[in-house]
């Protein structure tokens, strides 16, 4: 207590205490309502905006990467498809060529067979023709001989006989 008596510095004045209490409470109330709330909410909103923007950018980045990956995958797939298509086309082509060859062979065989048949036929026709020709010749010759030799009947007959025996088909 002696200390308090000695030093007025550590003795709070009633008046200042009252003024201080009233003033501080008023300041607290006014600033709380009109300054701190708007300021803090504005700062908070801005921070949220910035965070959102960063998150958005990150998301877009991820999406872009995803898109790139997708594109690459698509490209790879397209390449594979192309290769498959080419392979298939090649196969089809080979198959077609093989089939055509086969067909051609068959056709050729058939043509050859036809040709040989026709040759045979024509040969036969020619032979027949030849036989006919020969027959005609024989007849013509016989006629000439007959005209000439008709007088000699016996001789004629023996001659025909020899001729006939000589003539052999084929």
């Amino acid at each position, binding site marked *: 207590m002696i200390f308090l008596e000695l030093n007025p510095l550590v003795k709070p004045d009633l008046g200042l*205490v009252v003024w201080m209490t009233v003033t501080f409470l008023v300041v607290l109330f006014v600033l709380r309502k009109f300054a*701190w709330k708007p300021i803090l909410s504005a700062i908070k909103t801005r921070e949220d905006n910035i965070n959102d923007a960063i998150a958005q950018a990150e998301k877009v980045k991820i999406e872009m990467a995803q898109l790139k990956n997708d594109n690459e995958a698509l490209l790879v797939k397209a390449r594979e498809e192309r290769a498959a298509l080419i392979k298939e086309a090649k196969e089809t082509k080979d198959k077609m060529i093989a089939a055509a060859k086969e067909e051609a062979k068959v056709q050729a065989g058939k043509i050859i067979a036809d040709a040989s048949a026709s040759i045979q036929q024509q040969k036969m026709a020619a032979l027949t023709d030849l036989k006919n020709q020969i027959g005609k010749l024989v007849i013509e010759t016989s006629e000439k001989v007959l005209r000439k030799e008709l007088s000699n009947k016996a001789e004629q007959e023996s001659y025909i006989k020899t001729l006939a025996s000589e003539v052999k088909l084929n």
Partner: protein
Amino acid sequence: MRQKGLKSLLVLAFSLFLVLKGTIIFAQEGGHNSPAHNTEKKFNITETILEHVSDSYGWHLWGHTSISLPVMLYTDKGFEVFSSKNLADEHHNPVAYQGKNTYMVNHHTGKVEIVNADGTPNHEEKLYDFSITKNVASLMVSVLVIMFMFLAVARAYKKTGVTSAPKGLQSFLEPVILFVRDDIAKPNIGAKYAKYMPFLLSIFFFVWINNMLGLVPFFPGGANLSGNIAFTMVLAVIVFIVVNVSGNKNYWGHIFWMPGVPVPMKIFLAPIELMGVFTKPISLMIRLFANITAGHILVLALICLVFVFKSMAIAPVSVAFAGFIYLIELLVAFLQAFIFTMLTALYIGMAVEEHHHAEGAHH
């Protein structure tokens, strides 16, 4: 990690400050007080300094010019208001003023007293002094400054919205506001910090701006308001109320029935913890008061060296020292506001802490 760095920096600054302060005061008192008393009776260094750091009824500007402030008194005879110029003559000596009672300023305490006809103080009569003193006037100036600053900043936020970067005063104050939020409120209070932000910001800026105004050596500064025990006491009491009103079951449990210790220990700890409830705000009150007043006394003492020695030769030395201390005081003005707010946040944090945190701390 950053928190730790900041802490060690503060500790360093503090220790340096205390060492410096101690040495200079010691040198001052040991070396120069006695010759002053022997040779010069008229100049009393203690009285001069105390007068400068104490409250007064008028606001001294320069020479014989001062602003008279209203004296408001409440006595048994009712309320009365008169100008403070009635209480002193042109030489600043107290004179009696005849109102509903006869009033006179006590030369030692500097306070108005009711005096008898013969000039002796009459302590029988009740007297409540609600005067607008220099400190109260300074308080009002600081309120105007604070209101102007923050309402302007709030307007700036409303006007420019949240899309543009802060400008001017706004850009200067926003980092400080964020500092209070991110480095004081969030780490000490935790999840419930938002509720206490307006309170902490008000305390911080109120203390800081009043500290700074106290450092301005001329009108409208110069009052040692934040180094006045009434100022710090009111803030401490408000902190005490806020902390204890916020206190949850867990907080009171820790005070009266400390968990995790044997029963005799619980009984032993309860009064100590209960005392802690009061010592915390008291330490806040004394810390701010002592730091700010000590800084003012130190600067004044260094300046007074010139008058003690009655030599201009000492002036450069004392001005250099005083200037140096002034710069430190600028730091202290911020530091004390920071420490006051941080400890307030810490106490609130302890009061609102949830159970599982406390359990973790004890095992």
